[in-house]
């Protein structure tokens, strides 16, 4: 049986949330939370007009803006407090908090004012109705099932379809936006996240890993998803030809936005672009060992570099095909953890919320790579996760998960005086951002975990890495980036951490570190970091040990799983001898790769979602791993195909 996580945390948002479940007595949940709402109708309670969404926004985020009469309100999906905060943007104060029966990830306002939020830890989304009195909590109307870890939300242009992405469930589900009945669910590559629909009714889905975007034509009920490849090359006068020719991969595909082209360009009327902030990654050639850890040496383009991939939705291909070096020196302050995006059409501004640097970047949305066309940046409290903008007034709101705050920024500048204009530093002067502290009170016992979480998401900290990377750069949401890196010791794939570290000692592929802090310290050394203090290493370890893994997914053929379990534990296969009960390990190393030293037995917990497999990522699927006749792990290659399928089915339940 899986060991219970001692300190109960909910992992729902990108910056894994801290939720002290023991604290809920402060705000008694509404009676609705005690009921199973999955079969209840989602009909409205009131006939009155509800607060209306601004800017016709049909895309989810961790924060949404509505207008109630003259008041501008923000709804904040707070994974830490498992609540929706209603905030008066103009009044700079929180009005009320609505408790939820799960960890909210995105929030979306429907055309009639009802509110939908994904509950990432419960494989459901909830439909709520605001009160005509904005000071009152939202009423929970109903909940509906969705594949595991529902995340992103969007509406079709006619508001008739509600789209839900499921990250762990690898799916895009289409619901009727009136009845919330499921119309279809499509399988997608791993870690789908944000979703939007263009004017032509085509849905675009970002993926946390793999540098790809899924595309589904909603007008055709039989259409299957296609993929847009977002991989790029780099261009730098310092790079070798081999490195210039290498196609990079990508990660951190949390966000999407879209922008219309200006009508004053011939032929541009009606054209849109889909903007996908992400991080382009060059892990090096896994076939060849590098003279350094993790990827190629710096040559003007870092191994991890932010890029906004600009996709032509009609052609379904990216316009951004290169990363350009702008200097021969290393640069800090880059947006290595992009988390959310929104477009202000009036100024063609792409707003990107960046964790790590804890900033909101205002970019030129019309650039081929808007990250190279930064207009302004605003500092915000730690861990920005969501952004929304009122196009008309230029009011942007940013929700910071770690800082438990909502920041209000008025984007329209105060025109500089003639005297200031004459000086070199003169430029648009933004109004002062103000942050509103949200109602959240983590238990004091979680302080160390919170500090560990903050360290995990910290970029540009020379103690952690010499190139600005954060722990979360590779361990996305505490999990993995699906990347196999070239290192001094050979190819190494990034292991998933969240939910897998309890009882998994020793640590590291070679099992050379007895404790988690020791292993973190060695990894930081490999990254060129100068090192953290012992107490900081302990805090990081404490956070990682309690950060829960992906949600459970019970959808499996019980008979097949039972047969797979028998095979797993059989002496003929011998899997269970090392991978004790599948999830624990024998705590020792084995010679599984004759060309390398012995490797520590890893836990198989959550293995279904952590491809590629083996220390060097040589197997893209579990089926490929179990079918390899050259494998030194068990004898599964000799099994009949049906038995291998049963073994795979069992592994997928771990």
């Amino acid at each position: 049986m899986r060991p219970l996580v001692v300190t109960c945390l909910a992992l729902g948002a990108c910056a894994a949330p801290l939720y002290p479940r023991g604290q809920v007595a402060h705000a008694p949940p509404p009676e609705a939370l005690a009921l199973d709402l999955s079969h209840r109708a989602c009909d409205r309670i009131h006939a009155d007009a509800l607060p209306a969404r601004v800017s016709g926004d049909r895309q989810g985020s961790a924060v949404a803006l509505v207008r109630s009469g003259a008041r501008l309100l923000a709804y904040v999906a707070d994974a830490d407090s498992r609540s929706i905060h209603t905030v008066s943007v103009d009044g700079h104060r929180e009005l009320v908090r609505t408790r939820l029966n799960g960890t909210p990830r995105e929030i979306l306002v429907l055309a009639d004012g009802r509110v939908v939020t994904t509950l990432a830890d419960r494989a459901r989304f909830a439909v709520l109705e605001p009160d005509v009195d904005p000071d009152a909590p939202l009423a929970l109307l109903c909940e509906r099932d969705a594949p595991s870890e529902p995340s992103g939300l969007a509406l079709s242009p006619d508001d008739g379809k509600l789209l839900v992405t499921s990250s762990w469930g690898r799916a895009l589900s289409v619901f009727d936006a009136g009845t919330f009945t499921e119309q279809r669910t499509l399988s997608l590559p791993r870690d789908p996240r944000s979703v939007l629909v263009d004017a032509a009714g085509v849905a675009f889905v970002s993926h946390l890993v793999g540098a790809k975007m899924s595309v589904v034509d909603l007008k055709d009920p039989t259409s299957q998803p296609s993929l847009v490849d977002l991989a790029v090359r780099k261009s730098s006068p310092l790079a070798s030809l081999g490195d210039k020719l290498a196609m990079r991969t990508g990660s951190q595909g949390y966000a999407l936005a879209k922008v219309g082209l200006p009508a004053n360009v011939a032929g541009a009327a009606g054209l849109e672009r889909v903007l996908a902030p992400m991080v382009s990654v060059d892990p090096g050639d896994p076939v060849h060992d590098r003279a350094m850890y993790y990827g190629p040496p710096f040559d003007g383009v870092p191994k991890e570099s932010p890029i906004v991939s600009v996709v032509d939705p009609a052609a379904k291909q990216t316009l951004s095909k290169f990363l350009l070096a702008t200097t021969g020196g290393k640069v800090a302050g880059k947006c290595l953890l992009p988390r959310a995006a929104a477009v202000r059409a009036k100024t063609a501004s792409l707003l990107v919320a960046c964790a790590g640097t804890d900033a909101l970047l205002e970019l030129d949305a019309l650039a081929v790579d808007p990250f190279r066309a930064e207009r302004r940046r605003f500092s915000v409290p730690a861990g920005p996760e969501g952004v929304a903008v009122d196009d008309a007034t230029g009011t942007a709101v940013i929700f910071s998960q770690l800082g438990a705050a909502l920041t209000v920024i008025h984007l329209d500048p105060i025109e500089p005086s003639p005297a200031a204009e004459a000086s070199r530093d003169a430029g648009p002067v933004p109004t002062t951002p103000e942050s509103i502290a949200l109602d959240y009170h983590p238990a004091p016992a979680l302080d160390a975990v919170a500090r560990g979480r903050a360290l995990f998401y910290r970029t540009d900290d020379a103690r952690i890495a010499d190139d600005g990377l954060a722990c979360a750069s590779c361990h996305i949401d505490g999990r993995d980036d699906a990347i196999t890196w070239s290192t001094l010791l050979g190819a190494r794939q990034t292991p998933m951490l969240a939910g897998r570290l309890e009882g998994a000692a020793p640590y590291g592929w070679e099992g050379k570190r007895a404790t988690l802090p020791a292993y973190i310290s060695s990894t930081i050394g490999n990254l060129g970091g100068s090192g953290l203090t012992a107490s900081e290493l302990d805090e990081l370890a404490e956070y990682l040990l309690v950060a829960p893994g992906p949600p459970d997914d019970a959808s499996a053929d019980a008979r097949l799983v039972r047969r797979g379990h028998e095979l797993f534990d059989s002496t003929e296969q011998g899997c269970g001898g090392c991978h004790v009960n599948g999830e624990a390990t024998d705590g020792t190393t084995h010679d599984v790769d004759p060309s390398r030293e012995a490797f520590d037995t890893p836990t198989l917990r959550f293995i279904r979602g952590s491809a590629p497999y083996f220390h060097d990522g040589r197997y893209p699927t579990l089926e490929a791993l179990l079918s390899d006749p050259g494998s030194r792990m068990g004898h599964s290659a000799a099994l009949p195909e049906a038995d291998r399928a049963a073994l795979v089915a069992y592994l997928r339940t771990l």
Partner: protein
Amino acid sequence: MRPAVAVGLLLTAGCAAGQPGSRMALGAAAASGSVASAALSQSRDLPPDPPPASPLMSLERNPASGGDGPIPPRTVHFDVDALPVASWGPPTKRDGFFVRREPHGYLLTTRSEIFAEVVISQPGNPFIAFTGGSFGAGAPPTCAPAVHSGATVPTHWTGFGARGWTDEGIDVEMGRGTFDLATCNATPLDSLSVRGKAIVPGYVYGVVVRKLGDTVLAPGESSRDELVLFLPRGTFVSATGDPNVPLNAAATGTFTRLTFPLERGNAGSASVTVTPAALGLWGELRRTGRPVWSFQEPPERHDDLVVAIDVACQGQARSGSVSIALARRVDAKPYAAILAANPQR
């Protein structure tokens, strides 16, 4: 016949194209602010106010390196189809060039008075030179009749007139032909001339060149064009394009030439770092219409001013932008003219 005018001197010790640049801090205008400790007096069933969030930190200074971020870029968006279009045609007697050996190098002379990038495609050892100064890369031709009798290689040149250079335009000339390795004389086969139009007046000029010969056209395309831009010499130039033939996309010497294929569904970008010395060279070329032999890149790193170019062909729309960004707290005087030239501040 108009006498040839020597406007280019090539020294074997000339500067290689695309010298490495130096460090530049990334960043942008930052805003400091305050934290409002929100009162929750209207909340229902909620505990007392939480402590305020952490104070906002200014990002004006780079948190890791201590360097400064750039000021907001000054960006001009332009419609590619508003630029002049040039087509190739038969050469004139003013086209072409020749190379002559000198005691300490080579003299490359174009037959018309142009500041030009010249490429001699010697097999396995292409030679690239710029007239108007001492800039070259690769092995110059030996001009040895005994060795190369009758041997020719392809050559092409791209440049703009030393005269007629105004804020609004330049006279662009391009040519293709054969280069006789024995006599070191280029014979033109095709050429074009067109008045290039300013995108950033006085600093960035562009023309659309209809490509020569058979090309595979994308659906909906009636021709295959290239956008060719001319701007001051860059010390650190990155550009999109085939990594195997980087000089097709960009070259830098006396000036920087960028070429972007205008293919439907594609886009191109370049990042060009310009120093005060390069701006001085650009200004002197324009003012005198004569080569500048004394140009020297300062040894210290200068990557304070970045000119970024984007071109995108989406549907029927062919649009572009030029952004000019200067690092903060840099002495702006050497850059004042180019910053002031941008029409869309």
